């Protein structure tokens, strides 16, 4: 019995575990360490119309049980990603979720229109929540009307389902979630990083060159759980959960909160083998907990009748 097979809009997944965007590059580095076919899907690094160098260094800093980063959406640009990176990934039997970003609505549309034509891109992840770029990014994700209109614009040109990545840097995340659902989103991915800062004790200045950065890692897991718990009760589209996942137990907790799949981010930097390890451990943990299929866990924290067939493959 396959306890892990999961169906979501556009995505037929062997298992609901995938590396999160920005934490896996385009998969090349990890392909030398394990068979990428083991993964449920791959969320590739954010792609913009033109190449971006990103922010000055230092770009990362350690925090208690977490890290700050301000990479700044460095990527080789749409055409190189399509030719080189998606071409490289095409030899694997793994659906690709392409994270798309830009400064203007037109940028999102341009990337969405082209990248959604790639054979292995089965869904888009609309990045309206990057806290580390001056224009675009988070500006689209903190106002419900703007979030809705960029979602609608991307939906109009995309060949594949669109998942919208939500920012936790808002007072009312449900409002944004409902707005993008109205805008036609097929699913949500949440959460992106929390805006944070660290200062150097000797100089008094920020530790990373950009000043602020996005906080990720185990430190933000309770925030992600709370937000998914809240949003999943108010929308009818599925959620791919992320934010500090580092173990099979964490995955189950995200499902309980209301997620139907999960992405592993920062943990890939600490242990590059963490995704296959979690995928291997999950069936044993489900067995131990008495679940026939992982979908039974979705929303268990708030559902009266926790058994659900919604996402069962």
């Amino acid at each position, binding site marked *: 019995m396959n306890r892990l097979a999961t169906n979501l809009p556009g995505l037929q997944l062997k298992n609901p575990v995938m590396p999160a965007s*920005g*934490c*896996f*590059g385009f998969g*090349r*580095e*990890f392909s*030398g*360490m394990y068979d990428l076919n083991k993964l449920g899907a791959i969320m590739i*690094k954010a792609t913009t119309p033109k*190449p*971006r*160098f*990103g922010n000055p*260094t*230092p*770009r*990362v*800093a*350690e*925090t*208690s*049980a*977490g*890290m700050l*980063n301000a*990479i700044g959406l*460095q990527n*080789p*640009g749409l055409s190189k990603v399509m030719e080189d990176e998606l071409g490289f990934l095409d030899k694997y039997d793994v659906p690709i979720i392409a994270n798309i970003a830009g400064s203007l609505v037109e940028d999102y549309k341009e990337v969405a229109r082209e990248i959604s034509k790639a054979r292995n891109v089965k869904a888009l992840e609309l990045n309206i929540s990057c806290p580390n770029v001056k224009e675009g990014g988070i500006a689209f994700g903190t106002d419900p009307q703007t979030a809705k209109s960029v979602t609608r614009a991307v939906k109009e040109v995309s060949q594949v389902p669109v998942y919208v990545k939500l920012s936790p840097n808002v007072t009312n995340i449900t409002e944004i979630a409902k707005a993008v659902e109205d805008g036609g989103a097929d699913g949500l991915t949440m959460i992106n990083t929390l805006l944070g800062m660290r200062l150097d004790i000797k100089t008094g200045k920020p530790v990373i060159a950009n000043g602020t950065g996005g906080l990720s*890692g*185990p*430190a933000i897991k309770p925030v992600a759980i709370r937000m998914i718990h809240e949003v999943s009760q108010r929308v009818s589209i599925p959620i791919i959960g992320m934010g500090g996942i*580092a173990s099979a137990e964490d995955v189950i907790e995200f499902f309980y909160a209301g997620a139907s799949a999960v992405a592993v981010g*920062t943990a*890939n*930097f*600490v*242990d*590059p*083998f963490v995704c296959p390890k979690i995928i291997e451990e999950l069936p044993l943990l489900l067995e131990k907990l008495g679940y026939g299929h992982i979908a039974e866990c979705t929303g268990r924290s708030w559902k009266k009748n926790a058994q659900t067939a919604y996402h069962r493959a």
Partner: protein
Amino acid sequence: MIKNENMRVISQRKIAKTIYELTLEGELVSEMHQPGQFVHVKAGSGFDPLLRRPISISSIMAEEKQFKMIYRAEGRGTQLLSQKNNGESVDVLGPLGNGFPVEAAYGNGGRVLLVGGGIGVPPLFELSKRLSAKGCSVIHVLGFQSKDNVFYEEEFSRLGETYVVTADGSYGGAGFVTDMIKRLEEDFPVIYACGPTLMLRALEAEYGHKKLYLSLEERMGCGIGACFACVCHSAADPDGHSYKKVCSDGPVFRAGEVIL
């Protein structure tokens, strides 16, 4: 190939002020083929500290399946590491990066110059061992902050002529490594260096036209090229978007390849 292993502590000793030499044993050593590569070390077992610490490999003893690394116990992670005792294990990912091209020194005539600054000195030791084993005549110029910080002078001296300088003049020659190199009045066709960026810049300005190889230091996230934390601009495109990753394209670059 990059591997992850819990390696056994064979010995740990303090060799200078806040400087430790750690000897580890395990199968991972059989993957270490090049001087100048590094390992990524998880200092604690939980989430705090979370990230690994990049530490250069200073000596490879392939037959014993052991290697040495020398690090400065400065932050919380490296301080935790310095408390590891014999028989305990350390979580190591590696070997990572591209090291010094040893073969670049062959057949150039003259002596091979190795220049190290502070905690950039350790990877030169394995390099010097290999160059000496190939019959190259090596000379070392090692710079430290102060007398308390000096280490491995004797070890390097066994491999070749060794000059130590300190910035405050409390030991050896006074001043910077570049001052000492000038005083030697010798033409070095091949130079390898590892140390602070300012030192590497000074060397590049003076000896960039030689076969000069520089090992860079930058704060890292993953150490394997996935997180894009440690990028630098390519020299051919100083303001553009082409880049090199210090962790996986480097840490060793030919002078003039990247913007320091």
